[in-house]
């Protein structure tokens, strides 16, 4: 029987991507707990396995063996579908991400657009889950998610448009290809295209925090205000899948930031580019995301709206205009 090698390749990538997403979700929880513990001068998980490394496994088993409670009065269809709607787009986004020049499942020409399209579906999943829960805390949280969505996506997309203008392509592999050859070629230091590039990276990073609902922008699940926000009624694996989706989104956000600004798989000194550099940069960004969460208190959503409309959007537009002017002149 003849099987197209392309299909086998895609199947292998599918399994790989799902395994990567799941493993990351599990071990980022471990990383988060360990990092939080050390920031707070504790030890963190240490009982299960060496350095508590088997803790995610045990947590997973616990979550999976728990009963899936569907509270009376919820919309059962939306309630059950919402976690999947958060998880699936996150996994889909991995398909277009180039981990190195050869390690990419589908080298789409509109890869960047696809990722942002999937990211919007993720917000929809949260909204549906909260609405389907028929819980007042969850509904308030859903309203916050929507206002947050409007606030952060504009500066983020304007920044991305700036980068697309510089690169002239939406193909993620080609965007990285243009930055190869040392850290001075990376977009974050591409001062000849626009002197505001480091600030553009900061804007993108802040928007990424907001997009993944991470502190200090975790208003959607502000535990001291809304109990658990959109996840209030979820338990067991329903909650677990939401949680995995959240971590998968952090990985996506860090990956996109790495690709757009930090030169993807490029080595800073022009030596031995490869997937390891991609992972080092990505995990460094994730480490920073966790670091921020355990350092800062939460903002309010009008704080985020003010930040977005008064600071991030004007600066990102200035950057856009400046970049287009520079491109025209030089």
């Amino acid at each position, binding site marked *: 029987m003849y099987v197209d090698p392309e299909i086998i390749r895609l199947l292998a990538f599918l399994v790989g991507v799902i395994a990567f997403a799941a493993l990351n979700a599990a071990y980022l929880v471990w990383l988060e707990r360990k990092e939080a513990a050390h920031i707070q001068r504790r030890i963190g998980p240490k009982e299960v396995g060496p350095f508590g490394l088997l803790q995610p496994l045990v947590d997973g088993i616990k979550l999976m063996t728990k009963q899936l409670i569907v509270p009376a009065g919820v919309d059962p269809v939306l309630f059950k579908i919402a976690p999947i709607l958060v998880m699936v787009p996150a996994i889909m986004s991995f398909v277009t991400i180039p981990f190195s020049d050869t390690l990419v499942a589908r080298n789409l020409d509109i890869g960047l657009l696809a990722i942002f399209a999937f990211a919007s579906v993720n917000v929809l999943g949260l909204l549906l889950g909260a609405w389907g829960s028929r819980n007042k805390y969850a509904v308030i949280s859903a309203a916050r998610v929507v206002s947050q969505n409007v606030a952060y996506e504009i500066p983020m997309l304007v920044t991305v448009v700036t980068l697309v203008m510089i690169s002239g392509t939406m193909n993620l592999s080609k965007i990285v290809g243009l930055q190869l050859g040392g850290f001075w070629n990376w977009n974050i230091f591409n001062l000849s295209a626009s002197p505001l590039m480091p600030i553009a990276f900061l804007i993108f990073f802040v928007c990424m925090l907001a997009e993944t609902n991470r502190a200090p922008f975790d208003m959607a699940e502000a535990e001291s205000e809304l109990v658990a926000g959109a996840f209030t009624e979820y338990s067991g694996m329903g909650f677990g899948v939401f949680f995995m989706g959240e971590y998968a989104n952090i990985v996506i956000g860090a990956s996109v930031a790495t690709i757009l600004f930090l030169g993807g798989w490029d080595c800073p000194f022009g030596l031995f580019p490869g997937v390891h550099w991609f992972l080092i940069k990505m995990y460094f960004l994730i480490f920073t995301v966790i670091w921020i969460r355990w350092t800062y208190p939460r903002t*309010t959503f009008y*704080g985020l709206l003010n930040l977005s409309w008064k600071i991030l959007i004007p600066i990102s537009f200035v950057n856009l205009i400046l970049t287009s002017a520079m491109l025209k002149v030089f």
Partner: protein
Amino acid sequence: MSAFAESEAKETFVLNLGPQHPATHGVLRVKLTMDGEYIAEAEPVLGYIHRMHEKMGENRTWAQFMPNTGRMDYLHALAYNHGYVSVVERAAGIEVPERAEYLRVITAELNRVSSHLLWFGAFILDLGGFSPLLYAFDDREHILDLLESVTGSRLTYCYFRFGGVYNDIDDNFVPGTRAFIKRLRERMPMYHNLVTKNIILMKRLQEVGPISAEMCRKYGATGPVCRGSGINFDVRKHEPYSIYPEFDFDVPVYEQCDSMARYMVRMDEIEQSLRIIEQALDKLPEGPVMAEKVPKILKPAKGDYYHAVETARGSFGVRVVSDGTNTPYRLKLRSPTFSNLSLFGEACQGMLLPDALALMGSLDLVIPEIDR
């Protein structure tokens, strides 16, 4: 869907905050009428941990009520001890040895610092910052160790007795306390750098949650709440008791009336308490810690007595009416947080939910003390 807006004319809904909500720190329930995320009306519902302390006091001897005092405000139990023993000593005419008074002040002020440290951590936790809580608990642990060595317990102290204190300090207490003061003074700048000067925290607290001096007078708010509204009132200064007049300390007062002012009052009070402890340790006299002629069965003269002390949350007053028997005829407890909470309903009208919860955190509520 029936849980949501009933009619189109008035699109509000009732949000039941508590009694098991993470932000209410205990079993406080607040019935919020919400217009979107704005609070139209807030009604605190009390009584979930009511234990009839006043009635219990009328059913047992004067001394038997002592342990109850530590169980009202479990975070500043020694001030409650102090209030109750003072009023009974006033009623029975008991003279307290000087060393005992010094020990009372030292331990009560240490307890105040531990209460403020716990509040600091819990308040930042309300604002979504988790890490300061564990740093504050680390410092508080040292106080608990010190107080454990003197009083024998770590939380619900019952250390004071009519006519003195239960136990003299050991040799390690004075150097241990001095070491702690040095340590905390080194840590406070870190807290201010990491937390107070944090831009997010400043945005969340400054000009948010206004409580005017007028409102404080109307509801009888005391303690850091009224001092954050520009009212210079501290029972230790203005109705001096025990040996507080002998010490040189300031009453921090802020005029801004916002949540930040109340935050700053408490942070400054930690330093002022440390100053009091330091002076008391310097002057600590030798002598007995218990008055000699305290009758085994106490029967204070007939009369009506009142004594107020300054706790970490405000003015705590005890009124006892004695009919000359071995049990109080009437025992009335005036707890500060009850008054401080009562202004919440008016203060938070029209506020956003996160800001209202920041305001509630800045009131420093201890629920068992509200319900008693």
